[in-house]
């Protein structure tokens, strides 16, 4: 049996005596006797560390991983500098609790303050919180931020990641909010449909940028339409793309959310990822979740604390704007280290290479006869037609390449700075051979 209990039998005897009971079971005297399991637990026997490591490693070996990844759709394989994992594995940071006792948590609080600053810089917004679970829940929480007695309906573009829309739907089931999906036209939000749909009771409109198909939306114009209807404008953004594209702030967003997974987090079967939420100063008190603020101590020294707690559940209880308690602190910390390691030039480099390589790959696919299904400008993802996605992907898989994601109409490809030209050319060769063999 594996155990982390240091107490010896003789110590246990001493402790029981000090308490004044004769056995461990006596401590459960309030539990109805027939509720006690008395060891009747149908679990396998415990294991030594060597055995458990072997067992888990065996499970892990049943997964396939690929040396070349051309799939995105909400999970992006970017280069993670070694210094990131090295810093983030420090015991003090990993095993610390939420920094409620500020005096002994200055390291975490300062790191989160730095993270909040970086999210503001990336998105151009005024205020950021200390993170939420992921981009999908950030999107869902943004709806609550925008609702009031007169503005009750939420709108989301059909070009949003389906998982984000689904999560919003679930949260709206909770809050009894009507969620309306604005249709797409040639892969981007249909502006006429949006104009027609937004009424005086519209609370917010959410659009993803770049959108699920990799296309660049007319974000500024969508913002104007949204504000004209008296609604709040929410953008869900890829933080890497923000190094190059017009920021949500420059597009008029009231709230910018997204998933920070591309900022130094492993793809890891989907989690833990990193939701970020940033907003204008006007909306500060509506932001859910923890926020770190700067202050001074009794000696006048600068320090950091969790602040604006009157928004949160532990103070407001049923009047809180959200129930959120835990955040993704260590993931936010990781993103901060990644952004520090990359710096501006590094992040611009990642964005530029992802953008450029995706365009290179798209043009080579087009040469082979696999054209894009949409016409607009794209960032690092794009959809090509493909009548036999299964066959193409199987051919790529045989070369250790994870091809794009099969979607309606074809394949959604993603290229990041991780993929070299040689790997892209190999993928093209492989597809060419498969196509000619067919």
């Amino acid at each position, binding site marked *: 049996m594996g155990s982390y209990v240091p107490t010896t039998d003789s110590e246990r005897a001493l402790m029981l005596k000090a308490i004044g009971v004769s056995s461990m079971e006596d401590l459960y005297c309030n539990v109805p006797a027939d509720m006690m399991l008395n060891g009747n637990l149908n679990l396998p026997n415990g294991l030594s560390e060597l055995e458990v*490591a072997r067992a888990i490693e065996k499970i892990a070996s049943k*997964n396939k991983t690929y040396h070349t990844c051309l799939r995105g759709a909400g999970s992006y394989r970017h280069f993670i500098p070694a210094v990131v994992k090295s810093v983030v594995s420090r015991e003090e*940071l990993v095993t610390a609790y939420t920094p409620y006792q500020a005096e002994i948590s200055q390291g975490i609080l300062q790191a989160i303050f730095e993270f909040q600053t970086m999210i503001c810089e990336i998105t*151009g917004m005024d205020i950021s919180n200390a993170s939420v679970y992921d981009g999908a829940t950030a999107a869902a929480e943004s709806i609550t931020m925008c609702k009031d007695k007169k503005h009750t309906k939420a709108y989301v573009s059909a070009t949003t990641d389906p998982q984000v829309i689904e999560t919003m739907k679930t949260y709206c089931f909770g809050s009894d909010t009507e969620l309306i999906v604005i249709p797409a036209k040639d892969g981007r939000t249909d502006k006429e449909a949006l104009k027609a749909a937004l009424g005086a009771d519209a609370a917010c409109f959410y659009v993803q940028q770049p959108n699920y198909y990799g296309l660049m939306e007319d974000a500024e114009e969508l913002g104007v339409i949204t504000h004209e209807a008296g609604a709040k404008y929410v953008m869900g953004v890829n933080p890497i793309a923000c190094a190059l594209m017009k920021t949500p702030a420059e597009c008029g967003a009231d709230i910018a959310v997204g998933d920070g997974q591309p900022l130094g987090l492993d793809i890891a079967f989907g989690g833990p990822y990193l939701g970020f939420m940033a907003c204008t100063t006007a909306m500060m008190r509506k932001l859910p979740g923890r926020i770190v603020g700067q202050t001074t101590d009794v000696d006048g020294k600068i320090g950091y604390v969790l602040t604006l707690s009157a928004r949160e*559940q532990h103070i407001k209880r049923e009047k809180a704007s959200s129930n959120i308690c835990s955040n993704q602190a260590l993931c936010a910390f990781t993103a*901060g280290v990644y952004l520090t*390691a990359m710096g501006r030039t590094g992040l611009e480099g990642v964005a530029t290479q992802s953008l450029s*390589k995706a365009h290179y790959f798209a043009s080579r696919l087009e040469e082979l006869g696999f054209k894009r299904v949409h016409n607009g400008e794209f960032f690092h993802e794009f959809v090509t037609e493909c009548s036999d996605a299964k066959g193409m992907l199987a051919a790529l898989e045989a070369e250790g390449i994870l091809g794009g994601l099969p979607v309606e109409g074809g394949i959604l490809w993603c290229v990041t700075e991780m993929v070299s030209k040689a790997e892209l050319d190999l993928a093209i060769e492989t597809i060419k051979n498969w196509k000619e063999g067919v």
Partner: protein
Amino acid sequence: MSLIFEKGCNDQHLTLLPECDVPVVTLSSTREKELHLPHVCENDLTRHYTELAKKVHGVNDGFYPLGSCTMKYNPKVNEAMASLPGFINVHPHQDPSTMQGCLEVINKAEEYLCEITGMDNMSLQPAAGAHGEFTGLLLIKAYHLKNGDTQRTKIIVPDSAHGTNPASAVMAGLTVVNIPSGEDGCVDVEALRAAVGPDTAGLMLTNPNTVGIFDKNILEITQIVHDAGGLCYYDGANLNAVMGVVRPGDMGFDVIHLNLHKTFSTPHGGGGPGSGPVGCKSILSEFLPGPVVKKDGNAYVFATPENSIGRVKNFYGNFTVIVKALTYVMTLGKAGIPEASMNAVLNANYMMSQLKDTYDMAYEGPCMHEFVMTLERLHDKTGASALDIAKGLLDHGIHPPTMYFPLIVHEALMIEPTETESKETMDHVVSVFKELHKAAVENPESLHAAPLTTPVRRLDEVGAARNPILRFSFE
């Protein structure tokens, strides 16, 4: 200590990426506002974070008796397993046939956690306890709606409950009915009986409760709610008292959430990521968020429950956290799981027995895995508060217990040692508490000034909220 933005200079950078090996493309419309990010060399980067890490007190640094948080030892083998390339390099959109290991982790975690809790099915998707509460309450809502009971909108919550309970109920579109706790800190059964009715959706409870006591009326309590047509929700935050010894499913609960970052040893990471799986009896399984993992012959497949409430987040949950918890459960196994909880209860009772002659206990023993002290009398007599004692602990390198929670106890300090602390550590901590009590009686001023030896001293929290500075400014 300066911020990272104040270090280095513009020309400093790491050499991380090769040159672009394809023609460079630009966007037609680009950002105008300059992007300010840190500019340091790798040496100064690591020094900055080393300096930050030295100003953090983790479980690895010392005793961490936070009541309701279960700050037990975080096993390092869990970290190693969660970092296996076979897990971290899996893209969540891969074909399930290529992710059988990940699906097996989810399925095994569900199986073992259901066995421990007495539930029939579980979703590993929720990312934290509060997220699990929200999910579980949606299950209850969906259940009543399916039965046409649209008037069942009230959730009964004891006044001793954690703030996330009522907040989650409101997020789920339900109304909160607060009921008072009895003199003994437990549910006032008569108040509960008066509160239930045809509009009752359910009850949210944690057992042992937030004052560390196992409510011996638990079967009667859940029966009252069931008889009124409601369902019972178990907040699993305190499972460390009863894991493997008693099961919430046997107490009459229909739906539960677990905190893997509490009971199941995954690290807190400074506030997250956690994981809050939701388990339920079969009457609610059809509503669970999807996708869930099922076994189809020899293979694992994804499936969406028939009347699923839908996703509550992207992908499948905080996967690497689940790997850590599974490793833990497999390590402890059949005998180790109840050994952990029983020793957690032993340790709390031991500390209580050693402190009860010095401090006032809010409730008489025996306690479960945590106990609450009330410093109201000490405060009235000496002016030293629970906060002062807590700050005094900091100067001894000990993390304070949970303060001022639950709200039903005045000047509360809630202590939860967990099973991974040695008698030696606990005896030392007891002596420090006694020393602080002496200081409170003889020289309360010294405690008002605490802490003295930490990187910063008491911080102006009022000022921070009044004039919020929430980011560094580059202007």
